[in-house]
């Protein structure tokens, strides 16, 4: 993935690596709200990530009509044409992802954990396949191209662009992190933690747990949408493959399990660790066939999932104890 990004200069590379890691950190924080704090096992992270990314892309990118040759569409093109600034794209990404999450939540949150996993996985896969199939809308497997950058420089300066991206990403990450901390320490957040502990007892104490769960799921989904909006700035074009479970859902699980569920700092650490692997694998690109590295990395993620869930499910950095005075 990084190989397709700008190749010049180590600092530029690091900037892009960090930006990727930031995107996945934001994703992981969203998932952490759903799973770490509320106990809702979302196996469809990729779906909300996708909705956010494509919403932002379509909002900000100019329209690309299909390329038709002799009555046959050879390049589907994609919708767009609003060409609105990035901020608008980001906000709408959050809105649509959050809405999708709320809609999915309403029928499925009453299901037990494994059914929820299957339902959310199904949702993510269907969304992804619809994206591929509805290609006049989304560009299909060609993706959406010519995504405007946050800052363009004349002459094009990859380093400066990378720095701008990194700066914006860092600000977004900080904002999300602070927002999350504020929310989970709040009385509303306390209800979520109570639900995770013992939902029935929480119901018996007068809390509408279904509503709280839906809110938590929707808010988490909105954050994943924001990650999607950021994501489009890191790549030259959108590829539905990037939103498959192996790339968008399962690594997030690892990040949250590694970093420690219900611990946002740990989750960010986890994200950077996992993404560090990606970066290392790109560096090794010259010595080992890049495809093998890609697959081995996924195998390592698989092995990590197994080892961690058996031996250290609480993660490396456990949840910090709150002290109410």
């Amino acid at each position, binding site marked *: 993935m990084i190989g397709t990004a700008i190749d010049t200069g180590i600092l530029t590379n690091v900037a892009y690596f960090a930006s990727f890691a930031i995107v996945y950190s934001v994703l992981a924080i969203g998932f952490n709200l759903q799973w770490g704090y509320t106990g809702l096992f979302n196996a469809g992270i990729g779906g909300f990530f996708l909705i956010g990314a494509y919403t932002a892309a379509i909002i900000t990118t100019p329209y690309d009509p299909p390329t038709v040759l002799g009555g046959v569409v050879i390049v589907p093109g994609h919708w767009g044409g609003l060409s609105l600034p990035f901020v608008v794209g980001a906000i709408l990404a959050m809105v649509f992802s959050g809405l999708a999450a709320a809609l999915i939540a309403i029928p499925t949150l009453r*299901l037990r954990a494994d059914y929820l996993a*299957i339902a959310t996985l199904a949702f993510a896969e269907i969304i992804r396949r619809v994206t591929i199939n509805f290609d006049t809308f989304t560009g299909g497997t060609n993706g959406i191209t010519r995504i405007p950058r946050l800052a363009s420089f004349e002459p094009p300066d990859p380093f400066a662009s990378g720095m701008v991206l990194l700066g914006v990403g860092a600000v977004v990450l900080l904002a999300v992190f602070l927002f999350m901390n504020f929310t989970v320490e709040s009385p509303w957040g306390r209800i979520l933690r109570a639900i995770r502990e013992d939902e029935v007892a929480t119901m018996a104490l007068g809390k509408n747990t279904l509503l709280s769960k839906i809110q938590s799921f929707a808010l988490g989904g909105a954050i994943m949408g924001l990650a999607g909006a950021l994501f489009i700035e890191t790549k030259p074009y959108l590829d539905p493959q990037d939103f498959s479970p192996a790339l968008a859902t399962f690594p997030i699980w690892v990040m949250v399990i590694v970093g420690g569920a219900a611990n946002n700092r740990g989750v960010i650490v986890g994200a950077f660790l996992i993404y560090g692997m990606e970066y290392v694998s790109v560096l090794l690109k010259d010595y080992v066939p890049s495809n093998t590295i890609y*697959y081995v990395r996924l195998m390592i993620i698989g092995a990590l999932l197994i080892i961690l869930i058996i031996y250290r499910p609480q993660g490396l950095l456990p949840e910090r104890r709150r002290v109410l005075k």
Partner: protein
Amino acid sequence: MADPSATESSVVTGRRALRWRPFHLTAALRKRILRGLIVVVAFVAFVGGLTAAFGINILQYTLYGFRTSAIVIVAAIGLTLIYGIRGFANFAYGDLMTLGAYVALFVNVNAQLSIVWGAITSFFVLVLVGILLEILIFSRLEGRGPVAPIVASVGVGLIIQNGIYVVAEAQPRLFLVSLGQEVTIVPGLGFSWLRDGLTLAVGFSFMLFIHALLTYTNLGKAMRATADNLELAKATGIDTKRVTYATWALSCGFASTAGVLLGLISDVQPLRGVTSLLLIFAAVIVGGIGSAYGAMLGGLVVGLSQEMVVPLLVWLGRPEVLGIPHADAYNVAVPFLILILVLLFRPSGIAGRQTAIVPRGVVTGAIARARAARRTRLAASGAGRRGG
């Protein structure tokens, strides 16, 4: 499917002899057969009507539907058995199917043996894999709830899938088989002995096999008892560890067969199994978790609906109707929709009994467990009824 004979002392393991129960045509059985016949007649009438209206095409897709169902049924039986006993959804199942196909491919193409040998080898290799998975991973996750084994199974799936990518080509491969005759029954309706006939035959025989196993053998009864109530099964002396290994063996073996069949009707590639995963989950949930018979019904429903909906989608996708591009590709959404509907309205499925919803009181679960524990105590000690 409560079976009082499961608590007979004859179920104590040690002997896996086949015992034949006499076949009674009870009133209940007669009612079921009658209901089944009505469904079959209704289905035939339905398909006949559609064919008369829209052409022979329908029959072809119906055939595809049965063929897909056969494969899904074999896979779903394997998945539902382990779901019932270990209590979790095996997200690696699709990749296990793919692994089965690749082992068979290796034997078939590289070792230049017949595909039959490939399938047999594949079956036993996967049996070993299943037992290894239980020993190394899933036995350590017992009692940790449904999420931990799901996560572990995802890890297993990732390793298998990407391991295949590393070891084998990513290019789709084909088995070396003589394609057999392609028979044209009527213009527009083709039947391939290899693709259609073999698949249907294998599917049907596996269904018979599992039925015989579950109904007539001690192992089968032990499996049903264990899936029903683990504590009670242990208390009545069933070696649940052995049953679990046997179930893993069956589950992965069936996965390999389903994978090989899938490879025969299409091709062998690393993602083949994974794309069917949701379909098989849908079949399992529609049919009810833990029930092999439910898996058969669920597989039928899901397979038929996925294939038979294609002509309808093609029509809908035409520019003058809805104008959706690639409309036929949306047929994969149909089992998904069925799955969602079932989850919403009847989460226990057609034949299953486990509740899907967090019960209004987790107390329900606690009471059920307490009752089961009491039954276990009573069964074990043979004591009279005390207040409970």
